[in-house]
């Protein structure tokens, strides 16, 4: 086990020890004295977008949509005993999650931390995927997919992504369409596992009131040794401009649900570049659409928006977009109001005092996101997977200049 760095963050009164196993698994250990719970998050950069790739042996592989999510389900089956039973006996809370570009598995517990860690590392690193097991899971995943398909917010969100992007994989939800779930085979899932679940792709983040050195010593024999080779995702070329100006879908709802998105021509790349891009973009959205914003207040007073309004920003290496949404009988009024507001905001630029105020509030948010061992472990895993140092967000927040915010607002809302 190689110690990489011991990061101290005096402002949050936290520290994180970064290490790397012999096999290349990156590890973050955060000690949280006095806390009852311990948490462990184990993840990798492999998500629902990765359905077409060149495996480490050089072979081109195509798998059905939803394969990463299906694989996550199957890992919980365990090799010899269901993971539910193993964690259940320990009383631990656990789950997994699959997004466009990542999969993660975690548990939170206040007892038997070492034993729970052993279960986590074991089932993620040593699965058994058989046709029988895959067949049995299809009905469960179908119900999960149908549950999401019944949610107008979820459907609308993916309708927006199909308008923003021509071919990009984020047009398809992580669960995949039901027919794709039904055509998935054990060989598909095994191909994904073999290509991506390699020690140097995995990241492990732990937080709790433990002795980091003791934990590190216990981890090494449980983590797999080197298994070189890297899979290369193959994505279709994505045109720089949105696919559709407007898309509509009929769905049984009481009032229309409306989304409006602004996409960047490409993604921001990885590491600190991505984090800075994310912070700047979120700051711009907050400056226009938070309740504290005079721009938002004006829209609210006019009745162009109400409390069903929401905004969000999302990006990864190869995509970047901002979106707003609302439930309204008058979509055109909402759309024209928001469009006019963001254009005026981009032209006028942000107010320095508003930026400072939001920066102050963001500090409160940073404290909140390191409140519990689970939130700390989760944030540290996100940093590892993103390729940034834990707590990098604090320095970036401090360093952002007003003209950068203005420039980002123009990029987002006044594209050439």
């Amino acid at each position, binding site marked *: 086990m190689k110690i990489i760095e011991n990061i101290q963050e005096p*402002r*949050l*009164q936290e520290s994180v020890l970064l290490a790397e196993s012999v096999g290349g698994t990156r590890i973050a250990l955060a000690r949280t004295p*006095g*806390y*009852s*719970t311990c948490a462990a998050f184990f993840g990798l950069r492999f998500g629902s977008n990765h359905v077409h790739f060149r495996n480490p042996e050089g072979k081109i592989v195509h798998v059905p949509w939803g394969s990463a999510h299906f694989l996550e389900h199957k890992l919980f089956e365990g090799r010899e005993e*269901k993971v*539910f*039973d193993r*964690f*259940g*006996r*320990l*009383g*631990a*809370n656990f789950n997994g999650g699959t997004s466009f570009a990542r999969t993660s598995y975690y548990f*939170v517990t*206040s*007892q038997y931390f070492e034993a729970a860690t052993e279960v986590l590392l074991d089932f993620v690193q040593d699965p058994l995927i058989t046709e029988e097991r895959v067949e*049995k899971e*299809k*009905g*469960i*995943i179908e*119900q*999960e997919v*149908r*549950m999401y*398909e*019944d949610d107008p917010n979820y459907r609308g969100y993916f309708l927006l992504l199909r308008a923003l992007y021509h071919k990009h994989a984020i047009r398809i939800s992580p669960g995949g369409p039901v027919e794709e779930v039904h055509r998935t085979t054990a060989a598909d899932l095994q191909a994904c596992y073999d290509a991506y679940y390699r020690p140097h792709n995995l990241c492990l983040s732990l937080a709790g009131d433990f002795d980091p050195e003791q934990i590190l010593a216990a981890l090494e024999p449980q983590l797999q040794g080197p298994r070189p080779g890297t899979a290369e995702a193959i994505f279709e070329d994505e045109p720089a401009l949105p696919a559709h100006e407007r898309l509509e879908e009929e769905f*049984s*709802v009481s*009032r229309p*649900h409306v989304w409006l998105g602004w996409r960047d021509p490409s993604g921001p790349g990885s590491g600190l570049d991505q984090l800075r891009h994310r912070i700047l973009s979120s700051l711009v959205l907050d400056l226009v659409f*938070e*309740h*504290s*914003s*005079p721009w938002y*207040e004006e829209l609210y007073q006019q*009745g162009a928006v*109400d*409390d*069903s309004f929401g905004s969000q920003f999302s990006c990864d290496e190869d995509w970047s977009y901002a979106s707003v949404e609302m*439930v309204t009988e008058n979509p055109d009024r909402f759309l024209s109001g928001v469009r006019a507001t963001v254009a005026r905001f981009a032209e006028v630029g942000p107010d320095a005092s508003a930026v400072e*105020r*939001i920066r*102050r*509030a*963001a*500090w*409160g*948010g940073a*404290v*909140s996101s*390191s*409140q*519990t*061992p689970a939130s700390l472990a989760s944030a540290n895993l996100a940093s590892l997977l993103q390729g940034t140092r834990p707590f990098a967000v604090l320095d970036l927040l401090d360093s952002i200049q007003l003209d950068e915010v203005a420039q980002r607002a123009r990029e987002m809302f006044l594209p050439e």
Partner: protein
Amino acid sequence: MALLKMLPEHIPLAPGVDLLFLPEPRLKRALLQVDFDLPLDEGCAARTLLAQVLEQGTAAHPSRMHLAQRQEGLFGATVGFGGLRAAERHRMRLQLGWVGERFLPAGEQVAVEVLGLGRELLERPRRGSGGAPFDETVLERERAQLARHIRSFVDDRAGYAEQRFYEAMCSGEPFARAPWGTVEEVEALTAADLEAVREAILQRGRVLILAVGPVERGSLVEALQAWFGKEGGWVGERAELPEATTRMPEALREVREELPIDQARFHLGFRVARPTNSVEMESLLLASSVLGGGIQGRLFRIVREERSLAYGIGSDVLAGKGLLTVGAGIDASKADEVCEEVLRQVTDLAENGPTEEEISMCKASFLNGLQSIADSAGTLARFYAREFQFGLHRSPADRAAVLESLGPQDVQRAAKSWKADTVFLMADPKASIAGSIG
């Protein structure tokens, strides 16, 4: 890690106004939760609308924008209202949160200001012109917004189905009432109505205040006494709230409703005896956990894992009302199979009791949960508020001790008292429904 043995300090501020104070400097954020309890009655709509209107501004912060700016300036402090149904009470909650002093720049303090802002929302609302209790434009806008929100509730398939299930099962009981009221009730509300409920909340609501986290006792108690004590002007008759109504079913009722949805929503409700002591409470919760309290429950293991009939299925106890409910999203054609399996498992639990392994796994899960409580102001507040409201006044360690003492016979005894009341299915009109539900 040892279980928390500490009990919060109970400070009665006035008749019917209680403060539970649990200082915890280890935590990074403080939480102050002020619950105003009133009966779940026709006043729900007015209280829900009032909460929305109050958040639109105060005398000192005349718009929601000004309030939000103030909260951002206080390092992301949060001040807001929520409403919920607690058995047959309507609970209006004012919740305040702020970053602990040791994480703020030197010399910065926000607690007293945040508390003041919360009080200001309730006591010094933005008034209308000409002596009107509220600004008519604001009232009209928020009234229309709440009415729209209630009309759109049907779009939240799971939430809507659950409410319709409660209405079917508890028809004629206060519990059936949605805590946000109806469109008709909301549309009929006037500024005078809102002012009347504002005064009623402050004057007659049963108040329970939870203060948890890095909170300084002296200034907190002083501020709360100035609010709810004699000098605050709100000392009045705070009537005891009635017990929730109970009813035992004669036979299982079947209700089916139609809605254009892809996945059918299944609910099965049981009437259970309301627990009157610690052992009865833990026995009921443990029995529900064995049935469907999570991954260790029979419903997850059999209905989902063995029979692949659902993605999510579980049971929930509403102890204050005496209900146990099972909910799942399913294929409508499998409704009979799911219903039969749930009833079979309940019957088996009542006739044969749980296995030792089931008991052991459920206890492990509960103990983990009880030990985890200490790590967040929110979970601490929820735990101690519930203990106070049920009159049990236990610490997590006290609860764990009772739980440890329970055996299969206690779970079996609890399950024997469950009486199936209503099976409810909400499905697409075009869905093929097997068997007899509805």
